[in-house]
């Protein structure tokens, strides 16, 4: 029997940092740490501060820079990549249009008054419609990725394979992986291009905010305080699926109307049976394989929309 792989997810690292909390754990063996900070885009390489907090040598995988160089230098790949991105953006727009209506209807029904015997099935069905749309969208997004990857993946495209080999050899010398926060769409995009999911499936890791989101099976974007008001949470696409039973909600105190139980309750039911878990600054959760074994400051959202302590 092999030992369980340890994985930590953390909230944002500002204003307080707790990366060192994870790296002081006995489950993360000493040794260099590979870093993915592609979510920071152009600022990917600015890791000095992270290095100080981790206290171990860092091996920067530079996925963002690799992808930029690779795509910009290869006209065929560049055109295919651009077309894929255009299709994904358009599909997201269609999804958003449908989801906005379903979401508004579901909320209206959750707030409606009437004969409970009549209302309860309507409420359930309105959430089921949202879930069905989310699943449909995720499948469509995956189909676009599969089309692309049939021609452009490490298995079939030497230029990508060369990069993946380099990444693999960097990872070989590392005892753990760190994935930072940042733009989760960019982060997941770059990780997928280089097949990171397969390369790190047995590696202990620490991930915060967007990094934590990237470990789940589907990326759920959310923000209730954008300049033009709240938006319904959106499924953006698949994550690595390393922690498939959770939807991580970084910085929930600032981004989510946690006192709007109707809204948070809908969120929990929409993504059930996965558990919606908040990751605020200072919070940390550790998993042995997929089982949560440490829960410090994290909260799960129950189906009534209440934030509850995670009981292990």
């Amino acid at each position: 029997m092999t030992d369980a792989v340890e994985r930590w997810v953390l909230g944002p690292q500002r204003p307080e940092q707790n990366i060192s909390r994870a790296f002081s754990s006995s489950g993360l063996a000493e040794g260099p740490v590979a870093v993915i900070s592609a979510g920071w885009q152009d600022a990917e390489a600015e890791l000095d501060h992270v290095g100080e907090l981790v206290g171990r040598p860092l091996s920067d995988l530079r996925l963002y820079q690799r992808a930029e160089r690779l795509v910009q230098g290869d006209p065929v790949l560049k055109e295919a990549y651009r077309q894929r991105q255009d299709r994904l953006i358009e599909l997201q727009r269609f999804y958003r249009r449908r989801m906005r209506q379903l979401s508004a209807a579901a909320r209206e029904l959750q707030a409606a008054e009437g004969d409970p015997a009549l209302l309860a099935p309507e409420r359930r069905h309105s959430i089921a419609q949202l879930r069905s749309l989310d699943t449909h969208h995720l499948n469509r997004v995956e189909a676009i990725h599969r089309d692309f990857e049939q021609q452009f993946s490490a298995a079939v495209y030497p230029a990508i394979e060369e990069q993946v080999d380099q990444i693999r050899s960097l990872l070989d010398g590392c005892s753990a992986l760190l994935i930072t926060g940042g733009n989760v769409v960019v982060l997941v995009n770059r990780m997928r291009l280089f097949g990171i999911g397969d390369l790190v499936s047995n590696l202990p890791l620490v991930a915060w905010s967007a990094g934590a989101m990237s470990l789940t099976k589907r990326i759920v974007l959310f923000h209730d305080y954008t300049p033009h008001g709240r938006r319904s949470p959106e499924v953006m696409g698949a994550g690595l699926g390393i922690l498939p039973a959770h939807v991580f909600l970084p910085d929930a105190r600032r981004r989510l109307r946690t006192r709007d139980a109707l809204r948070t309750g809908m969120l929990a039911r929409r993504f059930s049976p996965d558990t919606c878990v908040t990751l605020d600054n200072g919070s940390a959760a550790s998993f042995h394989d997929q089982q949560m074994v440490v829960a410090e400051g994290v909260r799960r959202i129950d189906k009534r929309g209440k934030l509850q302590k995670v009981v292990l």
Partner: protein
Amino acid sequence: MNPGLRKLFRDGTADASAIDTFISENQFPLVDGRDITFVWRGEATNVYLRCWISGLDTAQPFQRLSESDLWAVTIELPPESRIEYKFEVVSGDTRQLVLDPLNEVRAHDPFGANSVCQGAGYRRPGWTLEDPLARSGTLKTMRIRSRVFGDTRTTRVYLPARFRENARYPLLVVHDGDDYLKFAQLKTVLDNLITGLEIPSMVVALTQSDDRLSEYAADKRHADYLVEELLPGLSKRFPLIDDPAARGVMGASFGGVATLHAAWRHPGVFGNLLLQSGSYAFSDLGRHQRGPVFDPVVEFMNRFREAPGKPAERVYMSCGIYESLIYENRSLLPKLQAQGIDVLYEEARDAHNWENWRDRLRNGLSWLYPGPVWMVYE
């Protein structure tokens, strides 16, 4: 009468020391719910409130309180309103426009300063104030030799913090750019919104005309200068996204006219328009009443209203409801929508001034150029 003043004059009169105390203990103008009381102290024949807002008399007379040197006038102002004003003090044959000496809140514009009255509930938005944690962009100066105008034009260009030559940026061209910087704190607003990821890192070209009442009044030379000289100059010098969806132009008042006219004359160039209190004077019948400077504007707007075309894909429009231009702005909205243009239109309880335009920038910019805040989880 304002309750505080009523108490001060409850015995029918008030001595100078009681008035001194009252003035030192209160903020002016006096706000009591919807009732705003302006106060002037001094010797005068008459005193008038001048606030140039649509819906109120241009000059509202103060009343002298008893036989004192205190004068007051009360107007009704809905919550969250904001107006600018001066006092007209008449002494014999002399008339003088002065700022309210009891109110330190001022707004500045190219013509000087006005006192500012903030109705109950108005708060200056936090994102208009300098934030020491916001990353600061830089301002460069660019000169462009203009064939159209036969002179050399200077444009200031805002580059976002962490600007990189190898990245590509959206572009916004701003009419009255220097005034937007000075009177609407545009640089601070850009720094704050970019740092907060509410808009993307972007390049902003701040144009300024020495003859705006002519060049911004639907002058085809100006429209051609923007599209045929300024844009190519900017594209050559800075890494810009070559896509109308990532390109926009904005302006207020006559700058709004120049914005709409340039986009109308060159459709498909600018994907985004940000129009603030545009001076869209038109005449459905007969001659307009706004003076000769508006002649070319009215001619353009009449033509535009007949054949709007599709000057842009997305338009943000705002106007203060205390502006005389509110009718023209409201009239433009359905014309744009009928062309299939995605329009966000907002009204504010404010007038034709820079702080009104400043306070709407967040909504306008973040709607036309949505930032990655939705996707970034730091």
